[in-house]
């Protein structure tokens, strides 16, 4: 049974979802802006030197990334809960309160990042400025805030899931979100031992982005296929369980590929190599699944003799298909070619990682979350069939083209680093700068900046479209 958007109007859960999406989109813009600052600094090192240094710009760039995705993820769950469970989300008042707590905390954290930047080497700085651990820099007070907000969110999800109709999608989300929230605890303590530090740090980062987030995407993709093309729920949910098995089966121990060089024992070479080699398989499988379901549903429609598209939301579906493809491309291909220890020895800590990071975060997560934003626009405006507009097409092509361009540029830069700084000079200070000053590297960084600007323009089109398309008369109501 396909989900019906139009029943959702007036749902408080859906209203909260739109709040989450709105703030997520703002942070997405901030992410791109600070990314641009950092990209300019690669080209013009004096830019904002000792005002907004690279370290601060990059911290804001990657923190805004993580937080906008978490916001959009929470928002997507609040959006789909009434559709899946058939009831209003339980505890929605607390959910709304926690939203404002979350937003306020983020604003304070960002202001401190921007205006305090660094503190003395003591625990107070860790508590109130930042923890200086890539991706999870948030100061400790905010850590506790995040845990409270996440627990409130998980409680909403569990109460609603158990009281209403607990579909397969909701069941997967319940299990996945509790793991997602729980894993954050692994990144909340301080230790003098940097190997132990990074060991647990990867529990948060890897087990989020290569396990729980991927499963989350599987669940959202399942919801999207049911909602947008009326795919058969039983098929989609069975497939979701298979994906969970494949993703967790390969992803959990795939963490081994982060344990090659941080002081951990050699056996992680074998574990990392084996499970990393398997990690692309579920991504390939997710890709076929979308193709398969689309083909089957359209085929069934065509068989009725009425030639009409089964897709009721063109922009959202475009982003969902880009997700299936982008996940495979960014996480799969760009992940696989530097994952085996033999080659990772030379690529670890180069722009290859950065290339992979850009394409994988975008392909695997940004795409589907933008898709969910379009589903929300469709739902809140009561649109039966939503079509592309000029802006939505410009947004898709400029953002995808921009990110792809940045990825290719960073890959070229990484290749220079591997050859010059790593294979020949062995990662010394001088070797590092020899690599950085190479012509190919420098030009790659120029292109990365250009492509970053293209991405940002695409974002402006996206923002315009999300704000205006709901009232556009081209859609069928």
């Amino acid at each position, binding site marked *: 049974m396909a989900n019906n958007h139009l029943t959702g109007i007036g749902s408080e859960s859906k209203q909260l979802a739109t709040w989450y999406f709105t703030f997520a989109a703002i942070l997405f813009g901030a992410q791109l802006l600070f990314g641009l600052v950092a990209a300019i600094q690669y080209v013009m090192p004096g830019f904002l030197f000792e005002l907004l240094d690279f370290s601060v710009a990059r911290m804001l760039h990657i923190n805004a990334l993580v937080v906008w995705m978490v916001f959009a993820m929470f928002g997507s769950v609040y959006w789909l809960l009434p559709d899946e469970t058939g009831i209003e989300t339980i505890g929605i008042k607390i959910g709304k309160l926690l939203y404002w707590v979350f937003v306020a905390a983020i604003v304070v954290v960002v202001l401190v990042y921007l205006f305090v930047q660094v503190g003395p080497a003591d625990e107070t700085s860790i508590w109130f400025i930042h923890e200086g651990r890539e991706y999870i820099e948030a100061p400790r007070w905010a850590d506790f805030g995040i845990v409270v907000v996440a627990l409130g969110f998980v409680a909403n999800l569990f109460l609603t899931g158990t009281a209403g109709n607990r579909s397969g999608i909701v069941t997967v989300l319940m299990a996945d979100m509790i793991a997602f929230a729980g894993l954050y605890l692994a990144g909340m303590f301080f230790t003098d031992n940097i190997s132990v530090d990074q060991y647990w740090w990867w529990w948060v980062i890897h087990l989020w982005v290569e396990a729980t987030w991927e499963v989350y995407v599987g669940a959202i993709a399942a919801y999207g296929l049911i909602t947008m093309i009326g795919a058969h729920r039983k098929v989609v949910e069975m497939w979701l369980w298979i994906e969970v098995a494949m993703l967790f089966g390969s992803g959990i121990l795939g963490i081994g590929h982060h344990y090659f060089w941080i002081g951990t024992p050699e056996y992680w070479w074998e574990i990392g*190599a084996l499970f990393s*080699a398997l990690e692309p*398989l579920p991504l*390939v499988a997710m890709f076929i699944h979308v193709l398969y379901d689309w083909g089957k549903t359209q085929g069934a429609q065509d068989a009725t003799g009425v030639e009409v598209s089964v897709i009721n939301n063109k922009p959202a579906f475009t982003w969902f298909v880009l997700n299936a493809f982008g996940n495979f491309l960014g996480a799969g291909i760009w992940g696989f070619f530097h994952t085996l220890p033999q080659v990772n020895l*030379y690529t670890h800590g180069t722009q290859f990682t950065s290339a992979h990071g850009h394409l994988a975060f975008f392909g695997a997560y940004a795409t589907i979350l933008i898709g969910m934003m379009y589903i929300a626009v469709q739902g809140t405006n009561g649109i039966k069939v939503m079509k592309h507009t000029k802006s939505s097409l410009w947004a898709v092509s400029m953002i995808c083209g921009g990110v792809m361009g940045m990825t290719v540029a960073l890959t070229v830069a990484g290749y220079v680093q591997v050859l010059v700084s790593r294979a*020949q000079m062995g990662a010394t200070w001088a070797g590092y700068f020899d690599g950085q000053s190479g012509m190919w590297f420098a030009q790659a960084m120029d292109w990365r900046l250009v492509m970053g600007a293209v991405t940002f323009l695409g974002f402006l089109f996206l923002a315009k479209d999300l704000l205006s398309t709901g009232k556009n008369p081209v859609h069928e109501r």
Partner: protein
Amino acid sequence: MIEEVVMRQDIALDDFLPIFISSSLVLVFGGFYVGIYTAVKVKLLKKWTMPIAYIFWMLTAYCLYLMGSLMHVGEFTAKALVVAAIGLFLLPHAVYFMQHQVHEENEH
């Protein structure tokens, strides 16, 4: 089962590019194999294109072999790569088989 010689040999400078290209092509060809197979099964492509899918799988396997030998992988990693190649071979068959069964049960 520690591979003693995992890192013994340096990768030759000229080998990096072929390694990166072949390991990317593994998944590109793998994607074509799986994509064509599925497209034929859901009748988006004509039946005669099926052998092309298998040719892509062979290319995938060859790229894996090339990548592995240039990297001087040890015995264990070599086995892991063979498992991955076989897994990729079986994947679309298994997916199609299962999806087909569910559709049969639910639509008739």
